[in-house]
């Protein structure tokens, strides 16, 4: 088990006051909130910060945690085994659910402090309206662009909590096969009826909602229901017009480049975006690529090119 340096995670000194810890937490929570941050590890960081705060904000846990580090100088990641009876003489009170978004705590945390309430983050917190009905559950699922074009079946593994036989919540994994509807767009939600948390006292289960995210595609960019491709063309193709082969998510097509095309010009293929009742469009965005002049002949060709035109690209620029 790896030791976790909660002070380091929070970026505070070991003698920080409770107020300083609170301020550090609020700042980091804003920075790494998965709905706000674009950082790929935001969710992970957000959880770590939540876990660190769950310990450091609680004076009882903090004192006990400090006690661990008193003898040895533990470093993050170092193999850690709690000394026997390390918590003797400390009394932990239930405490609230992690002060916001803390959940799925590390083994390190659970060994020391037991399992806390896992709720938060992308699992719904308690806002139960109908006491009998299970909560609806939210999770994210990453799909490929092709899945939206063709429809697909994907398996999703969800972590959820169940009250175990010993009356304590335990984390379970659950794998579901889910039909990804054709035409689904990033940021949309799909609903799986009755797959959320089980209801209390035989009440019906809530629904499971999956928020759809697209795995970034190496070529295509999705914007709402439209799909874009940056299409590189040679200067003569752009100026004289050409027919070029271009890839689209549904296969290659021949595209006519009109004469006098410019960089940034968009060629639209209507209805070739994400499918649906009102399908999106596909756009090839032209990027003029210049061939590098390496040989003498090629350099000469550029010079001929220059002498054939009376062209000053800065003519319309002032100054």
């Amino acid at each position, binding site marked *: 088990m790896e030791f976790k340096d909660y002070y380091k995670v929070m970026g505070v000194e070991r003698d920080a006051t409770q107020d300083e810890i609170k301020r550090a937490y*609020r700042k980091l*929570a*804003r920075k790494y*909130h998965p*709905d*706000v941050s*674009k950082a790929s590890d935001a969710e992970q960081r957000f959880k770590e910060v939540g876990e660190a705060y769950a310990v450091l904000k609680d004076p009882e846990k903090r004192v006990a945690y400090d006690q661990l580090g008193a003898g040895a100088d533990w470093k993050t990641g170092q193999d850690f085994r709690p000394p026997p009876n390390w918590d003797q003489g400390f009394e932990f009170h239930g405490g609230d659910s992690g002060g*916001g*978004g803390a959940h799925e705590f590390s083994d390190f945390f659970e060994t020391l402090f037991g399992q806390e309430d896992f709720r*938060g*983050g*992308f699992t*719904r*917190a308690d*806002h*139960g*309206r109908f006491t009998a009905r299970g*909560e*609806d559950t*939210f999770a994210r699922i990453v799909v490929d662009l092709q899945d939206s074009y063709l429809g697909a*079946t994907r*398996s999703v593994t969800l972590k959820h909590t169940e009250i175990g036989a010993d009356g304590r919540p335990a984390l379970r994994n*659950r*794998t*579901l*096969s*889910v*039909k*990804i*509807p054709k*035409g*689904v*767009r990033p*940021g*949309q*939600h*799909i*609903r*799986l*009826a*009755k*797959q959320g948390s*089980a209801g209390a006292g035989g009440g019906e*289960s*809530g*629904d499971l*909602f*999956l*928020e759809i995210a697209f795995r970034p595609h190496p070529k295509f*960019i999705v*914007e709402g229901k439209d799909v*874009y491709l*940056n299409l590189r063309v040679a200067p003569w193709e752009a100026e004289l017009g050409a027919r070029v082969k271009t890839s689209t998510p549904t296969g290659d097509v021949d595209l006519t480049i009109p004469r006098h095309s410019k960089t*940034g010009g968009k060629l639209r293929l209507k209805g070739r975006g994400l499918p*649906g*009742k009102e399908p999106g469009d596909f756009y090839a*965005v032209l*990027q003029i690529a210049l061939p590098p002049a390496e040989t003498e002949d090629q350099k000469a060709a550029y010079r001929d090119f220059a002498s054939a035109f009376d062209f000053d690209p800065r003519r319309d620029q002032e100054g």
Partner: protein
Amino acid sequence: MAKENPNDVLQSEIIETRREMSLYDLCEVCTVSSERVVQLVDEGLVEPVGREPAEWRFSGRSVRRVVVAERLSRDLRLNAAGAALVLDLLDEVKQLRQRLNRLGDTDES
């Protein structure tokens, strides 16, 4: 929990393509109280068509806004006005990022 067999393929429905949702539907989908939705409507965080709550019709887009607003309120202790501001700014940032992306700027920052 009823079915756990991964071989059963679960059918799904896209929430956002539902044309119109009533106040009840939205509460159901987002698991929030109607009082809370009224509060969010007052802040302009979601904008239903219709005068009275009983006549309100929400677009599918409202689902995401309500869900994210609830997470922000809980995790960052924002009030409804703050969450509305964050949502609007996030939309703007997203549009700008997409535009940047499309302009061929492949810098991952």
